[in-house]
């Protein structure tokens, strides 16, 4: 297993997982499509009924499985289809942001945006902006970091060395 | 708050009276202002016609120098000449709107170790007086009543559009409000933002003169005693070519054209000499009327 963070190479493209609520932001992304508003292809959208469904674990899972950024899209304050799910999302987002900060994950990698069903243009600009910012940061490569942390915790330095040697061979 | 002052080339020659009167006015109102060190040409109209990016770079150097001279925080750079004001605000707008412009200009600035961070705000003296200083305070400085004097406020094109935000691009009112504050009477004048002809009075002169003539005639028709402007080129066109317009089109127009700072200065009793009144070709006929408690008579 390699411990070096993957350096940004010419081939590297950030991967961003987006969680969009069904009523506002997902519809806005559809609108962006219908309006042919071209944007960076680095985003992968997961549809939830409400941003309130967003379990912080989903975000951690995304980072842990190799996402370079996570974007959350919900209805504007006061517009939630389920009255106040977006406020819950905001609270969890703030909490998680602090946690990620502790973990050394840059602020720009987790983003929350209120995008209403009519704001197809905003989907484009937010995605493009986020991709540009994450490109500037480079890969997060959390999976390999986690692997090295795990091994450190286990104190299993020898095993790590062995594996490295095996790879060189 | 201290303002930085960007004179521009015109205020050092044809627009000298504008500089003199503005500085005298700021002094009287106790608005602190200091000249921008080593400012260069803004990169006006003529320069843009040759190389636009270089023009942006010229303007950006001034913005950067202002930022530098001010130290930290934002800084207000006062540009009285309309053309300079436009070019500087436009540069700022385009630097923030078009990443390509911003990259080219900043790369060029970097070659001499400069970097513009976007902390300069370009201001026009009209904006500063109306929105920062306040007309209530202006009114308190008035010592000569200009009552009954009808003033046509001429904004010209480039201070209200398209990048300024302090007034309406079609129907600006800032100067009209200044005129009211100093006790004179602004007239309703539909041509207040119509072009005076700009540099065409020199190049394709007949077209330029006709534009100035339309402005002068309408001001005369609406009973203006004086036209005030806030741009050295407008002032030059409307004043210096009045004789030629009269000759050419058999008109008998005779309207003094003052900088708004001069009119304010007169109302505040600042000596004529400090306001550069002696440099005018057509002197205002009411300047000698001192109105200590009495009514000013306009001729």
């Amino acid at each position, binding site marked *: 297993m390699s411990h070096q963070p993957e350096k940004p190479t010419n081939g590297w493209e950030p991967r961003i997982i987006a969680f969009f609520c069904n009523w506002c932001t997902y519809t806005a992304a559809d609108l962006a499509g219908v309006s042919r508003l071209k944007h960076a292809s680095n985003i992968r959208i997961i549809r939830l009924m409400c941003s309130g469904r967003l379990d912080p674990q989903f975000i951690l899972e995304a980072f842990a499985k190799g996402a370079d950024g996570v974007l959350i899209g919900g209805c504007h304050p006061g517009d939630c289809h389920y009255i106040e799910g977006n406020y819950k999302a905001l609270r969890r987002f703030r909490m998680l942001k602090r946690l990620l900060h502790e973990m050394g994950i840059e602020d720009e990698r987790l983003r929350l945006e209120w995008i209403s069903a009519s704001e197809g243009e905003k989907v484009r600009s937010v995605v493009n902006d986020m991709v540009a910012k994450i490109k500037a940061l480079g890969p997060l490569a959390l999976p390999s970091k986690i692997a090295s942390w795990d091994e450190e915790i286990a104190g299993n330095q020898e095993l790590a060395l062995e594996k490295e040697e095996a790879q060189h061979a | 708050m201290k303002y930085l002052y960007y004179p521009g080339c015109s205020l050092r020659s*044809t627009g000298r009276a504008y500089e003199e009167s503005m500085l005298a006015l700021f002094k009287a109102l106790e608005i602190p202002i200091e000249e921008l060190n*080593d400012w260069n040409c803004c990169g006006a109209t003529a320069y843009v016609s040759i190389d636009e990016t270089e023009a942006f770079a*010229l303007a950006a150097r001034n913005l950067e120098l202002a930022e530098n001279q001010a130290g930290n925080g934002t800084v207000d750079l006062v540009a009285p000449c309309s053309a300079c004001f436009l070019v500087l605000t436009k540069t700022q707008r385009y630097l923030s709107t078009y990443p390509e412009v911003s990259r080219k200009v900043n790369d*060029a600035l970097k070659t001499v170790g400069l970097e513009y961070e976007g902390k300069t705000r370009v201001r026009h003296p009209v904006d500063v007086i109306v929105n920062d200083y306040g007309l209530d305070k202006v009114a308190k400085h008035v010592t000569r009543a200009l009552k009954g004097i009808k003033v046509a406020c001429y904004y010209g094109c480039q201070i209200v*559009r398209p990048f300024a935000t302090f007034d309406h691009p079609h129907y600006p009112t800032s100067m009209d409000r200044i005129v009211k504050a100093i006790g004179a009477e602004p007239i309703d004048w539909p041509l207040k933002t119509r072009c005076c002809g700009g540099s065409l009075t020199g190049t*394709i002169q007949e*077209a330029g003169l006709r534009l100035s003539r339309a402005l002068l005639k309408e001001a005369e028709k609406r009973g203006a005693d004086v036209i005030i402007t806030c741009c050295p080129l407008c002032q030059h066109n409307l004043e210096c070519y009045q004789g030629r317009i009269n000759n050419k089109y058999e008109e008998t127009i005779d309207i003094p054209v003052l900088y708004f700072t001069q009119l304010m200065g007169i109302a505040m009793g600042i000596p004529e000499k400090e306001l550069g009144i002696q440099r005018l*070709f057509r002197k205002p006929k009411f300047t000698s009327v001192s109105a200590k408690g009495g009514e000013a008579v306009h001729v």
Partner: protein
Amino acid sequence: MSIVPIIPSLLVKDSPAKVPRKISRRIKFESELDLSFGESVAERAYGENLLSCIQCGTCSATCPLSHYMDYTPRRIIAMVREGFKEEVLNSLTIWLCASCYSCYVQCPRQIHITDIMYALKREAIARGGYPPRHPIPVLAREFFSRVKRHGRNTESFLLVSLYLKTNPFAMLKEAWLGTRLWLSGRLSLKTESIKRKKELRTILNAVEAEKGDGHQ
């Protein structure tokens, strides 16, 4: 830069209502057009909306100079779009634009018409396709080189060199105004200049070096 010589050929006359009684052949073949002209101008002039023009004529109607133009601004936009490069670059319209930005603020499609006019002027100057001794390009060139040398412009010197390069006799016509200006202290004969000239030149040279793809 206000007192500049006048070229007799550019004097404005009221246009005759009568059409000259001469038959002329007017037709345009697609092969005579430069079909990429519109896009290339749009790209250079922050005219990203140029192609969205609906030909409503607001620009022409709000323009204080459109009645002196050979083509109204609206027609210039249409011609740029359709690739009438020769007509556009040889038109008087682009030189009559006084940069008052009326059209820029009122255009319902938010087309940066003033910027487009500048881009056309630059292209015309660059290829030399303007009338000889035309004062506007000469003025622009003189201004450009003075600022490049000194960092500032001295209006009096600008004018003198301009007269010499266009129409020396016109200087006499304007002399009275110059004298009055000089007497009232409004025409300085001292060369205006900045201190760090080298710094400025380095910046401008850097911009120039950056070019190369022909974009300005």
